[in-house]
């Protein structure tokens, strides 16, 4: 009986120790995450694009490289691939956006209140012009209306200066 008790305590201690490890490893999940799903506003918003980007050279790059995951309308895939609509990740800091395109992205990120944890592969095989074009395209499409990206800006980030 006593032996059993000790075993039980040992198991408990182990569980506690492991749970502590688990907490450490999952610290990203500890942050407060919303239970409310994203509203369907994005679907409505995307229809009111003010810029006509249909003939933009970045669209061709987008369709062959990005569309499979981020969808033709930039709405992404729930829980998998983040949307490119109305988010600071796209319309904000250009250097960060160029860097993500060149190097890819891994680990948990939060986009419009939702947590995403997929991997985006690097796209450094695209030319500076292709990256400039496609980033300009996404920053001005899907109802986004941010400034364009030049190939010089891409080159600067690629060269690490």
């Amino acid at each position, binding site marked *: 009986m006593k032996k059993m008790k000790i075993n039980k305590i040992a*198991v408990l201690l*182990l*569980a506690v120790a*492991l*749970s502590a490890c*688990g907490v450490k*490893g*999952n610290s990203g*999940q*500890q942050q*407060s*995450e*919303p*239970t409310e*799903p994203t509203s*369907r506003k*994005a*679907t409505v918003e995307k229809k009111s694009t003010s810029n006509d980007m249909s003939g933009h050279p970045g669209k061709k790059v987008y*369709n*062959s*490289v990005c*569309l*499979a*995951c981020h*969808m*033709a*309308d930039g*709405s*992404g*895939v*729930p*829980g*998998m*691939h983040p*949307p490119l609509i109305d988010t600071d990740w796209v319309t904000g800091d250009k250097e960060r956006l160029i860097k993500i395109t060149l190097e*890819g992205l*891994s*680990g948990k990120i939060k986009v419009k209140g939702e*947590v995403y*944890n*997929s*991997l985006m*592969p*690097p796209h450094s*095989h695209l030319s500076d012009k292709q990256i400039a074009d496609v980033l300009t395209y996404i920053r001005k499409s899907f109802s986004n209306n941010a400034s364009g990206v030049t190939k010089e800006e891409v080159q600067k980030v690629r060269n690490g200066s």
Partner: protein
Amino acid sequence: MKKLAYFVLLTLFAVSCGQENATENHTLIPDSDNGGLTLPEGFSALVVADNVGRGRHIEVNENGDIYVSLRQNDGNRGIACLRDTSGNGKADIIEYAGEHTGTGIKLHNGYLYFGTDSAVVRYPMQEGELKPGNSWELIARGFPQEGQHEAKPIEFDGQGNMYVTVGAPSNACMEQMRTKGSPGMDPCPILDYAGGIWKVDENMLNQHYLEDGERYATGIRHAVATRWNKQVGELYAVQHGRDQLHQFFPEMYTTEESAELPAEEFFLVTEGSDFGWPYCYYDQLQDSKVLAPEYGGDKTARERCENKKDPIMAFPGHMAPNDLLFYTGDMFPEKYKNGAFIAFHGSWNRAPEPQEGFFVVSVPFDGENPSGDWEIFADGFAGTEPVNSTSDAEYRPCGLAQGPDGSLYVVDSNKGKVWRIIHS
């Protein structure tokens, strides 16, 4: 004395009325619109709950209590616990429990087993309580967390073993992850620790799945839908096939071919099976397991794929089968008995073609194998047609469970809507 008699009479009347009401409440009344679902004749549905969170899999206890695993939730309380106290089928108590989020969820031997992305834990169930106890134990650990195919579904064989799918953190085992022109690694090192189903002792605490468990089957890219078929005593799984054939090999596959290929494969998973990922994929148009282009395939060559195990059924590509259930209830017509239901989460990798799936299908079975074609059983989850972008789908079926009365429960992953499908 007279007064007392009146009192007794009145009390009896009240009690009998109460009973009558209770009996009436036990008759399930389906929603007039079947909760938005389209079902075969004779079936109807009611919405048990509208919004329990990011639902994944679902379990129903013998007393009718419902448990839904959540992919994310505040404070990692990833077990949604639902109870209907009035008998009308609608959950009137919804509580959240646990310290984990994930996919796998199974009531087994007085525990609620839960598959987080990196480990399987179990919570003790408590007699009469809706929520499981807090003192969880770690059963199996060490699962890879590499950002792709991390969901860990769990299943039991009733002989003391637990099965956990370890999805491959990869599309086709390319040297550079999902990069055009990158060749497939040969042999694929991922198969040593993922891309298969592992078997572990359901009661041994703190196991490392690689050290203490055994690889039961391999060559499975990812299978969120797994189920032990009690009638035949075998494990079944439905695989998520590889993506992006056109994107990486545009000279070989059109966008239309890439949207249809490869098949989502339904496996009878016997011990030691090898289904061929990443070297092979199943082409349902040719009824053939063919060599993947990353390994020198030309769309028809079979080579090493001749020795790989074929599926028992092949579905169109990318529809994302996320749960499987063998129906053993008495409520549904005979044709469904011991047959399979599969919840297809709906595709993303068919773009720019419209997305497909977003429905529950039925597959008739005779013994170990299907005895006829699959057909759509429950549809209308997406609420729109066609679905051009995956996010246009309002609801996406992700988990299935059978209730004690034979009802079929379906949970959605967008909002956590729960339906109960009945037959009368």
